[in-house]
C-alpha cells in the first residue's frame, strides 16, 4: 500500500496516524505541505528516521522546491521523487490511501 500524506505534522495528525497503521514494507509519500516533515533536525526527523527502518518513505521534489527546502537538508535516506515517479509508485502498489 502507498500512503499519501499532504499535511504538515506540525498542523495535523495524518502522518502520526499513518505511521501507527502502516504495515511493514508499505510506502509513504510526503507531498504538498507534508514535505516540511522531511527537514533534517526538525522535531519530526527522529520519528521519520524510525519509520524508514520499516517503510519506504518518499518526498515530492516539486513541493520541496516550491517551499524553498533544499534537498541537501532533508533527512538522510529519504528519496526525493518527481511526478513521473509518483505515478510509477501508485502503479507499484495495489492500493493508494490518502490520509486527508
Amino acid at each position: 500500500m502507498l500512503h499519501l500524506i499532504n499535511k504538515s505534522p506540525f498542523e495535523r495528525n495524518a502522518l502520526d496516524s499513518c505511521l501507527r497503521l502502516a504495515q511493514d514494507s508499505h510506502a509513504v509519500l510526503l507531498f504538498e505541505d507534508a514535505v516540511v516533515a522531511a527537514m533534517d533536525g526538525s522535531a519530526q526527523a527522529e520519528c521519520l528516521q524510525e519509520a524508514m527502518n520499516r517503510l519506504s518513505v518518499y518526498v515530492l521534489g516539486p513541493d520541496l522546491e516550491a517551499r524553498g527546502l533544499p534537498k541537501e537538508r532533508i533527512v538522510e535516506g529519504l528519496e526525493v521523487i518527481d511526478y513521473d515517479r509518483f505515478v510509477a509508485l501508485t502503479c507499484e502498489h495495489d492500493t493508494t490511501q490518502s490520509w486527508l
Partner: protein
Amino acid sequence: MKFGIVVNEGPYQHQASDSAYQFARAALAAGHEIFRVFFYHDGVNNGTRLTVPPQDDRNIVERWSELATENELDLVLCVAAAQRRGLLDEGEAQRNGKDADNIAPGFRISGLGQLIEAAVQSDRLVTFGD
C-alpha cells in the same frame, strides 16, 4: 494502468486540484488511461466556467477543460455537491427554475454512483483533498 482520480477541494484555496492535475498529466504522459476524474465536496467548484483568475495566475478550470479535450477525459462533478454550491448544467438549471448554468467545457454532472464505479473499474483510485 487505468486510474480513477478524486478531487475533494475547490480551486485556489487548496493545492489538491493542482496536485491532481500534475498527477493526471504525468499519468497520461506515461501512457496510462484515466477512467474518470471525480470532483466531490468543494471540488465541484473546479467545474465552473465563470472563474476569472488574475492574468499572471494559472487558470485551473480551463486547464482541466483543455486536458479533458486533448485526452477525452471524463470529468464528473458530483450532482448533490454541485447543486448545493450553485454549479448547474443546462438541464439542472431548467429543472430547478434557475436563470443560468455555469458548467465549464469537458465537465459533466452526475451521481455518486460514478465515484463507486470509478473505484471498481479503475486499477487504482487516487484521492486529492485537504
